[in-house]
């Protein structure tokens, strides 16, 4: 799949934002006043920024409001609905915390739950895609939620939680990569099965429908990224987990250290998310004999 920057940025930072909101809703850290303002500012900035960024890849963003209508069937619609609900609830919660120094815990919990559900909805946009076997597995929602929580914990300054979550996340990410590598073959899709011509022999594409590119090949067939996948996975794992874990375990984390931690984790996150798209193979590629 084409790793579109707008989608990568959206899923990464809105995930972080909702992760942070989850922690804030659960009252970690226990803050108020200006400190609370800045935490909420960062959380909302990331969550809303991500959502805005996601509209950049829309053909007709002016109609984006229509996307709230199909929550019964569409994960994308659900994501929109839950994101708005989460933001509204957490907005009210934040308003009370910052300006009225009032914490209504159940409201926070509700907000935290909605934030987490939003992250799950995001993950299911990908996880539901049978056409992309690498996404279409149970590890996808787990991974998205863990990214959201681990990043949220880090941003919320919950070092112990962050350490545990990042350890698990890194391990799970490596597991997901390895599982993902097998998924396409396990799903059993081949050019022979796609064309139904397998009984006649081995199938290969002789001539593409058009000699140049088209929307499908640009959007869903991305071979270049896969060439360097292994290197990128290692780099991602280093920044995502190894470096932060090392820092958190062996070093005293101050403000600058925390910034380094967050940036390192985010670099790892961005690379892994880029790989999430770039490594994902859509079954339509079979018709173009591109795997």
């Amino acid at each position, binding site marked *: 799949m084409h790793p579109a920057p707008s989608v990568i940025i959206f899923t990464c930072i809105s995930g972080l934002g909702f992760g942070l909101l989850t922690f804030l809703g659960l009252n970690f850290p226990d803050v108020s006043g200006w400190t609370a303002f800045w935490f909420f500012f960062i959380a909302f900035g990331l969550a809303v920024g991500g959502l805005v960024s996601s509209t950049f890849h829309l053909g007709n963003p002016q109609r984006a409001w*229509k996307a709230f*209508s199909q929550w019964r*069937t*569409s994960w994308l619609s659900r994501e929109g609905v839950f994101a708005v609900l989460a933001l509204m609830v957490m907005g009210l919660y934040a308003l009370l915390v910052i300006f009225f120094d009032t914490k209504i815990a159940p409201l926070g919990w509700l907000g935290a739950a909605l934030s987490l559900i939003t992250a799950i909805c995001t993950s299911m946009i990908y996880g539901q895609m049978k056409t992309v076997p690498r996404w279409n597995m149970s590890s996808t929602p787990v991974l998205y939620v863990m990214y959201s929580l681990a990043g949220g914990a880090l941003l919320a300054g919950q070092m112990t939680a962050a350490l545990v979550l990042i350890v698990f996340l890194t391990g799970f990410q490596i597991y997901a990569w390895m599982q993902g590598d097998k998924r396409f073959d396990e799903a059993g899709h081949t*050019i022979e099965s796609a064309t139904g011509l397998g009984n006649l022999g081995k199938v290969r594409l002789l*001539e593409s429908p058009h000699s*140049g590119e088209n929307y499908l090949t640009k959007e869903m067939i991305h071979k270049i990224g896969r060439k360097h996948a292994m290197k990128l996975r290692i780099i991602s794992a280093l920044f995502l987990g190894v470096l932060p874990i090392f820092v958190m375990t062996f070093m005293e984390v101050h403000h600058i250290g925390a910034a380094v931690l967050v940036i390192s984790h985010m670099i790892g996150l961005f690379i892994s998310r880029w790989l999430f798209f770039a490594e994902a193979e859509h079954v339509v590629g079979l018709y173009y004999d591109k795997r």
Partner: protein
Amino acid sequence: MTALPASTPKKLGLAIDLDICVGCHACVINCKEWNTSNYGAPLGDQDAYGANPVGTFLNRIHTFEVKAPEQPAQTVHFPKSCLHCEDAPCVTVCPTGASYKRAEDGIVLVNESDCIGCGLCAWACPYGARELDAQEGVMKKCTLCVDRIYNENLPEEDREPACVRTCPANARHFGDFADPESNVSKMSAERGGLVLMEDQDTKPVNRYLPPRPKADIQTDGDIDILAPFLEPVADTPKGLLGWLDKALEAI
């Protein structure tokens, strides 16, 4: 709405005959020609006369080569457009309700005024049947020429999809797969119509009629049947000419 109708009384679709498709692209271009100035937004072409021309097409032909060990390879032309699936994943993923499956005939359409161009439906389609038009920002797909098949401004014989009407090799047939007596149902039953990517559980309506066996592939035994026809009438040219005289007398 993005919910699928529980069932449709008609299942309109195409039977595409891979045995006769010569890969001439007539259906591809006639489809483009009809649809660029009819239903919905035009089908744009970017960099039309430039270095990387890319346009929106609703129907494309792939050419495959198929080879069994120790046999000559064969070439199969493979047209591909929307299969109007019964369980169309492209419909259910749509966040705005722009994508829908018509309750009356099962045609899968995009209501472009609701389409935000998120592209998710194209991702959900295993067949590559949907293309986002870069100029209009809306998703385009085969409409089964819904603006032709019921169109009272067209003579009755022309109320079929443009690709079917134009196909010089008669490789495309339009009909109702819900009716077991329809042309397409019968054809598909007779020829073992293929369901594409059955494992995706999309229940496509369109069927592909597979190539018939080729005589140059696995030819064992053929020669014996006809060998008597080539039994020489004589061993020498002279003998042959003698035979000829007799044969001529018989006329």
